[in-house]
């Protein structure tokens, strides 16, 4: 089976006042179909930037310097080069085929729109034809069932509406609906699509186990608790059944018990929807809970990629080992990593971890180690192997 996402030689740089920040350096990584891939690392390791690079949403003054990101499009059995896609094609992928959940659910939701509005927007953006189809069907049943005087009066209007929706359903860029959509007052005549989107939204909210979904749909973000907001954000990301769900520290701002609920939800999503998940976290415990494979990043580079069992039982890279030893575990002496995180402005030459590495060799300060497969599926970038 083809990999869903294949990242090759990706480099992201930030051109700031102080100098160039090497946020991601020559990253090679693939996300397989139906797997949960975790990226773990500390602050500034480039986890979030990797995610944003896939969506091509690197914020100013950052730039994708080079590399390629291939997205396997099942429907046409072809790989798309995301970095070379036209802007409107890329937009039709965002939120539709690849979607993202952010760390702060409070910040990720627009405070002046209701939860329902914000989720419906996704349907209205990417599922126009389907919505029009549903609206048409509803009108069909109205036309056939509608009795009485009121229905008699409305019948011609329904017929007209049905024709418009039919056009949208067949060809989303037909002239008449487009014209209607442009005119300020007439835009309202297309309300049935918004209505259908609302219905789908409520289903979506139920799907992420929000109790009382219909009521939550008309509420504003500030009326919900952190956990509920995160569920709503997840519902928004799942709305169009994406092939890849990117979750950027989705549980960091939540309490432990809510985090457990959320992790359960992610596990279920993977099973039910068959989506791949790119799960970014700094919490090794969380990574071991949900991921199938884990990638460890340090200062913009990949150190090690391995299946989760391998990674936590037989870590190879000195940084991975040190990181695991730094996690407080009962009955175990806490070990610290000497020194401070590599400076992203002036990264050390060679392997970026070598100044802190207990088993550094002369070569580590001169040459960076390439990622190589040491056992099946276990890749490490270290001169020791």
């Amino acid at each position, binding site marked *: 089976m083809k990999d869903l996402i294949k990242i090759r030689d990706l480099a992201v740089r930030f051109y700031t006042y102080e100098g160039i920040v090497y946020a991601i350096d020559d990253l090679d990584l693939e996300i397989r179909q139906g797997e949960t891939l975790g990226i773990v690392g500390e602050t500034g390791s480039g986890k979030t930037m990797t995610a944003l690079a896939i969506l091509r949403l690197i914020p100013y003054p950052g730039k994708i310097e080079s590399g390629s990101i291939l997205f396997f499009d099942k429907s046409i059995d072809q790989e798309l080069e995301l970095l070379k896609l036209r802007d409107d094609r890329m937009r039709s992928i965002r939120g539709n085929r690849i979607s993202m959940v952010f760390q702060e659910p409070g910040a990720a939701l627009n405070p002046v729109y209701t939860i329902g509005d914000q989720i419906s927007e996704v349907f209205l953006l990417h599922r126009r034809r389907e919505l029009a189809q549903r609206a048409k069907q509803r009108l069909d049943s109205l036309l056939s069932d509608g009795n009485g005087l009121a229905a008699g009066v409305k019948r011609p209007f329904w017929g007209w509406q049905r024709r418009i929706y039919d056009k949208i359903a067949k060809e989303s860029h037909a002239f008449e609906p487009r014209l209607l959509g442009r005119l300020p007052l007439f835009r309202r005549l297309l309300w049935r699509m918004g209505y259908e989107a609302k219905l789908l939204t409520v289903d979506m909210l139920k799907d992420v186990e929000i109790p009382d979904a219909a009521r939550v749909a008309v509420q504003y973000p500030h009326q919900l608790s952190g956990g509920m907001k995160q569920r709503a954000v997840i519902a928004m990301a799942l709305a169009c059944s994406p092939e890849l769900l990117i979750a950027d520290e989705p549980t960091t701002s939540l309490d432990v018990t809510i985090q457990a609920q959320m992790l359960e939800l992610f596990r279920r999503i993977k099973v039910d929807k068959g989506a791949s998940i790119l799960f970014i976290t700094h919490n090794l*415990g969380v990574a071991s809970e949900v991921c199938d494979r884990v990638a460890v990043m340090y200062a913009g580079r990949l150190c090690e990629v391995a299946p989760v069992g391998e990674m936590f039982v037989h870590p190879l890279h000195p940084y991975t080992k040190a990181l695991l030893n730094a996690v407080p575990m009962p009955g175990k002496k806490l070990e610290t990593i000497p020194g401070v995180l590599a400076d992203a402005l002036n990264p050390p030459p060679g392997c970026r971890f070598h100044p802190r590495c207990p088993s550094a060799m002369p070569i580590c300060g001169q040459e960076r180690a390439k990622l190589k497969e040491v056992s099946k599926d276990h890749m490490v970038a270290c001169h020791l192997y």
Partner: protein
Amino acid sequence: MDTLVDIKKLKKHFPILGGVFRRPVGMVKALDGVSLAIRRGQWLGLVGESGCGKTTLAKTVIRLWKPTSGHIYFDVPDETKALIEELESQGKNGSKLNYLLNENDLATFSGNRLRSLRRRAQLVHQDPFTSLDPRMKIKSTVGEPLRIHHVLSGEAARSAVKELLERVGLSAGQLERYPHQFSGGQRQRIAIARALATKPEFIAFDEPTSALDVSVQAQILNLLKDLKKEFGLTYLYITHELLIAESVCDYIAVMYLGKVVEMGRPEEIFHSPRHPYSQSLIAATPVPDPSRRVGRIVLPGEVPSPANPPPGCAFHPRCSRASDECRELAPELRPVSSDHYVACFHPL
């Protein structure tokens, strides 16, 4: 081991203002009757989720905030406490009782008495990015307590500050810098140095590592361990991460919605928790060990608002063992084995 800090039935309520006249229309019961004893030399871990009142407890214990009711004794002999309790139980509001309370109960302190307490008890805040004055050089920040309490001055103060900084792992060459020139971990070291300046006996930590990376967190925890041994300190350590509490603390108290629901030694709490909440909290904690992945209990629902806590046991709406009794009566902390207390009618 004798008790250094003894908290008795501590309550802290915050008014909710509302209506036309901004009058209190309700109370957020951040602390709703907490009793806790911290022994000299102990590292007590206080765990709980956000909104359970753990930060309020820390700030009330070192008297940044004034409690609504209850007693806080700091280094008070047991006889005195017993005497106060006896006088109180007699229901008399005599001058003797008032005198004793004014002399011994931190909750009544103000002015000079409070200032002298400040030398003995300190707080380290959660976020090192906000707890240091951005317009003050490091030497002034760390030296501030020395100046406030007129402990040392001039050259002696300067060398004391230098020593403190070196003790927490910073170099003396960084004295003239401002906080923004330091990383999060370094800032937290500075905050710790500041707390140590007056040679206190007791330090409360309010999630000191939650804003830091894993590797830095380990450095800070090891530093705290060393400092405790070196200066014979007593710690109240607040955290929401159970793994930290389990691996570094000597004694653990679990809080839920303004109350302590269980306390005991870490081995007991983690291996045989007796309160359903502690159990599910432990079960919910992710551990970096894929083999422990099975058999999670996912606790349903969310923590209720402390402004409107459920009647009876506050945990009952989320508890699978809840009975009618739980819905009406609030359980008190009861010993289940030596040094292990649970507030539950149906302990596990």
